[in-house]
């Protein structure tokens, strides 16, 4: 009986693959009626064909109403105050290309192009301060706008609407997922890149005189950075054949016990390489920490400020700095 109703209902609608679509419809009907759902698993290929058929119909609909839907979407975007960092024209331009990529992804059911586009888009809009929730928000808005238009188109035909939505929803969700993941990945890439840059900038080992290195440390030292500092310093001692190293920690407000211990170990390791370390610019807090961990002051050579440290280093190396003439 169901089949009979179906063929009378859908006979005219479905252009190709009628039999498959009907079989699929049959199963769906059975499910919605609370009947048996057996056979749905064995019907996989048929299901795919049917859903791509529906997707084609869907895509045609979206292409036809492109202008109207796009405008509605842009309206919704400004209504919900998303993308406030961008001008209306920019939003419209982006919306157009997002819309087209969206429809294309629906049509081809491949997400590589969309992924590339999402990455490209993210690259452009991340520097402008667009947030993750905005990107996800606009894609979800587009999904909703399109879904509404489907509701409107098929409102008289609930069953067909169901089938269309069955095909549309997974694809739409996957698109939203792809865009969101693309955006977050791009953001993470930027963050990683910046971290890397900061890390490289943050630990310069500088030679100020023959056999004299200075290592100015600024900012917070976490265990990872401490390890990196040590590695760079020890390697620097070797490559520059340094005899004296001045570690200036004026720019470090405080350090925890682990890092303080690490500093002491760095001093000792440098000695094993034949270099003397002078630590300058210890803040009262760091001095307190070092006393608390019970550092052997015989091993730590400390001077109040960087100038004093360099002067002492010069003495150790046998340099003598003298003024040649009265400065004019």
């Amino acid at each position, binding site marked *: 009986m169901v089949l009979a109703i179906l063929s009378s209902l859908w006979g005219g609608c479905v252009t190709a693959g009628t039999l498959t679509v009907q079989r699929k419809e049959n199963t769906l009907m059975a499910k919605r009626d609370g009947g048996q759902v057996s056979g749905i698993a064995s019907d996989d290929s048929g299901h795919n064909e049917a859903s791509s058929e529906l997707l084609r119909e869907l895509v045609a609909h979206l292409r036809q109403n492109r202008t109207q839907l796009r405008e509605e979407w842009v309206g919704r975007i400004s209504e919900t105050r998303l993308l406030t960092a961008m001008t209306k024209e920019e939003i419209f331009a982006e919306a157009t290309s997002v819309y087209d990529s969206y429809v294309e992804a629906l049509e081809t059911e491949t997400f590589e192009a969309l992924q590339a586009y999402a990455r490209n888009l993210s690259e452009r809009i991340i520097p402008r301060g667009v947030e993750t929730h905005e990107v996800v928000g606009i894609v979800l808005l587009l999904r909703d706008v399109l879904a509404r238009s489907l509701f409107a188109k098929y409102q008289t035909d609930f069953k067909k609407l169901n089938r269309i939505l069955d095909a549309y929803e997974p694809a739409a969700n996957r698109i939203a997922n792809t865009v969101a993941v693309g955006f977050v990945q791009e953001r993470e890439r930027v963050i990683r890149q910046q971290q890397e840059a900061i890390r490289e900038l943050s630990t310069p080992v500088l030679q100020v005189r023959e056999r004299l290195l200075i290592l100015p440390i600024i900012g917070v030292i976490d265990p990872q950075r401490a390890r990196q500092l040590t590695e760079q310093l*020890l390697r620097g*001692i070797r490559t520059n054949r340094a*005899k004296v190293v001045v570690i200036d920690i004026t720019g470090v407000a405080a350090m925890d016990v682990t890092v303080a211990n690490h500093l002491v*170990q760095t001093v000792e*390791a440098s000695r*094993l*390489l034949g270099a003397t370390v002078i630590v300058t610019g210890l803040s009262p807090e760091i001095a307190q920490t070092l006393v608390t961990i019970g550092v052997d002051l015989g091993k730590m050579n400390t001077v109040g400020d960087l100038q004093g440290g360099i002067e002492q280093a010069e003495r150790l190396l046998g340099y003598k700095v003298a003024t040649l003439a009265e400065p004019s």
Partner: protein
Amino acid sequence: MEVPILKQGEVLIATFQAALSDADLNQLRSGLVRQVVKFRSRAVIVDVTAMDVMDSFASRTLREIAQMIRLRGAETVIVGIQPEVAFAMVQLGLTLEGVVTALDLEEGLNYLNKKFKNVN
């Protein structure tokens, strides 16, 4: 593998090979301590550039060598500790306290020459 001990002026030089057994280390220790007086050397340089791992036995032996050489009337300089090895040693608490260290053989010889000049 036995460690060769070279005589260079007033200095004895022993260069470590990559893989040394505990027996080799003991042999090196007794060899150095014996020869330092035999050759009337004023200092001993132990070059560990080739060692990429320093275990606690090797580290302790180095310290013992330094102390025994001191008792025999000469000085010891350890040279060529690799950066990674240095930090690993410090983390294990093997800091070779009281032993002079230098970057490489050249630095070690420089240090000793300066010191000999000051004494003379």
